């Protein structure tokens, strides 16, 4: 009977390799340097801080609604505007001689971003309006985030708002096929318009931006009806090209 001899050489080799491995494990001196990186992101946010019109019965700004004093000789409110735009003391043709309709604006927590800090929406409501009634609503926006934003565009009923200096857009809000109001926007010297965070200013409100919606009720407006329109102001971080749906 021949007994096969064990593979001694293989055992030795394995032993050497095991010892070598052990040598690395125990003999290696090493050192780790760490970098702990923390990234805190800022916020993009803005709010409507003020809203008023030239027919809400209160003189809010003498350079814009000087005769909106709520004291028309005929009627219970300010004399109705018969044109849009700012009304200074010297502008004596801005109003009719009757106070029939009213136009109110307010800020509130509404719109798709309701619930976020600040007033995310504004309302403009015309009551007892009639053909050729006009209303100008001024809205003031403040950047209450920590990142600069561009006021990229204003859209009305999904369309880019037209600057009043170049024209106005008719809208058929009553659904009867005929345009019943026209709306344009003014007060924005350029688009996009950069607004820095309010905390950057030396005074509160230094960076506020005010623009106005100029509304004109047309002949085809239905009587005794409620006409609604949606307007959106799109702001995005100042260094990006994306994020606003309407090309302003």
């Amino acid at each position: 009977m021949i007994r096969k001899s064990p593979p001694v050489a293989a055992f030795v080799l394995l032993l050497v390799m095991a010892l070598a491995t052990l040598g690395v494990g125990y003999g290696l001196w090493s050192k780790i340097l760490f970098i702990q990186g923390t990234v805190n992101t800022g916020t993009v946010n803005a709010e409507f801080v003020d809203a008023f019109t030239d027919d809400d019965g209160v003189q809010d700004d003498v350079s814009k609604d000087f005769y909106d004093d709520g004291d028309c000789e005929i009627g219970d409110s300010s004399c109705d505007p018969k044109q849009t735009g700012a009304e200074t003391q010297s502008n004596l043709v801005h109003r009719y001689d009757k106070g029939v309709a009213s136009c109110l604006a307010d800020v509130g927590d509404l719109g798709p971003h309701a619930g976020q800090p600040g007033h995310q929406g504004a309302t403009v409501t015309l009551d007892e309006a009639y053909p050729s009634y006009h209303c100008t609503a001024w809205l003031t926006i403040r950047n209450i985030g920590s990142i600069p934003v561009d006021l990229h565009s204003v859209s009305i009923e999904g369309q880019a708002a037209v600057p009043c200096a170049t024209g106005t857009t008719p809208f058929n809000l009553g659904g009867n096929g005929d345009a019943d109001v026209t709306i344009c926007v003014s007060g924005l010297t350029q688009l996009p318009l950069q607004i820095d965070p309010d905390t950057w200013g030396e005074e509160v409100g230094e960076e506020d931006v005010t623009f106005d919606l100029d509304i004109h009720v047309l002949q085809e407006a239905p009587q005794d009806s409620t006409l609604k329109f949606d307007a959106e102001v799109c702001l995005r971080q100042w260094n990006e090209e994306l994020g606003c749906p309407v090309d302003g």
Partner: protein
Amino acid sequence: MIMARQRLKLGTVAMLLVLALAALGSGYALWSKVLKIEGTINTGKVDARWSGVICSEFHPWPFSPAILPGEVDGKDVGRTTWALDPNDDQILIITIENSYPSYAVDCQVEFVNDGSVPVIIRGNDITPVTLNLHNCVLSGTQTKTLTCDELTVVFVDNINAQVDPGDGVASSFRLHVEQPAEQGAKYEIQVRVCMAQWNEFATFGDCVAAAPVHNGGGG
């Protein structure tokens, strides 16, 4: 006959006496010396520490010769600061505040071999720490890139470079905030750079496994 025996005994005794005296003489006359060796081994140490950081914002991403310094339009919106952990100079803390999508910063981070043994940089890695970083993938060899939905982090190192005692090495740590980053969020990542004595073979894993545990975690 009797005389002859007595003479023999006497001779033997005399011989023994001579031998005994000779032995005694040797014992007293040997001069000897003991030389003593006291062995002391002072081992060196493998050590390193962060020695300096310079962070610069830039745009646009990615980093290239065409980049411009600072933020877009010269704004000062985000801020990057750094500090050494007060309890452990192995840990460099880089903090970015008020960042936003497209914010980018490049930090030149320098470390020095603070030990007495040459080391070789065995590797590095970048890992997400907070769970709000999604779909993170680490790629690259010499230049490691951690790509997450919210952040991209690049670490350019000197893997396999030998660093002698007292000598330093500069690496580049770059970070870019991506579009999906949430507002008002906090994201954390960690970079590890491991170096081991120059005369041993070691992978990055060996290096990390052999490194002493410290109060910053890992290793």
